């Protein structure tokens, strides 16, 4: 299964992968490149990844989701490369017999992506500057201030 793409994400493709008559609730999450007041002129984000590990970890993540919601079907794509503001970087479709399962499974997947999937982003600004982003969504500190991880 290829969870990564360098092309715009097709929501129709994801929905086709999870839809079935017995699944009456489908929840879709789209994460898009943001350019709000806090982003200071972000025109695009360049996404990069440890691609082999992303594919392996998505497989493990979806297996975990299947263990929790065995009646649900989930499809996910993460886009890499330079993505203009307003376009989707990630899409998740979760379909289940009932809406609660679909919402819960979709939320689980995006939260686990934020925690487990080795993808990084560099904000590209209208003034030509570029800044790596840390998990809190804020630009990274100077090298000497890099965090440690226990």
């Amino acid at each position, binding site marked *: 299964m290829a969870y990564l793409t360098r092309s715009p994400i097709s929501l129709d493709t994801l929905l086709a992968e999870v839809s079935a008559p017995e699944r009456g609730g489908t929840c879709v999450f789209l*994460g898009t490149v943001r350019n709000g007041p806090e982003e200071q002129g972000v025109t695009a984000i360049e*996404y*990069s*990844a*440890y691609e*082999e*590990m992303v594919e*392996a*970890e998505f497989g493990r993540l979806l297996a975990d989701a299947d263990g929790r919601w065995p009646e649900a079907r989930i499809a996910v794509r*993460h886009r890499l490369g330079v993505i203009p503001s307003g376009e989707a*970087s*990630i899409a998740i479709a979760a379909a289940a017999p009932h809406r609660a399962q679909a919402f819960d499974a979709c939320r689980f997947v*995006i939260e686990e*992506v*934020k*925690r*487990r*999937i*080795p*993808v*990084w*982003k*560099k904000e590209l600004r209208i003034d030509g500057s570029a800044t*790596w*982003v*840390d*998990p809190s969504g804020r630009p*990274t500190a100077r*090298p*000497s201030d*890099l*965090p*440690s*991880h*226990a």
Partner: protein
Amino acid sequence: MTARGTGTATIRVRLFARYAELVGRAETAVSVSLPATVGDVVRRLRDEIPAARALPERPLAAVNLRQVKLDAGVRDGDEVALLPPIAGG
């Protein structure tokens, strides 16, 4: 501690995103005496490549495509990846 084996191991080290920029390369190899841990690999990298001292002493790490703690053991031929704070989605 889950280090395994004796002798010397050659470890492929991969760096990504900001860490690759800081060190000036995306991939290298280091030799460590066994038994050895991921933490030993990080220390060896920082010793051998001056620019690698800009990396944190305790980065996120993966061995063979799985996140591990720094006291995880390594074997000859393993791939150790040092991962900047994950920022996907």
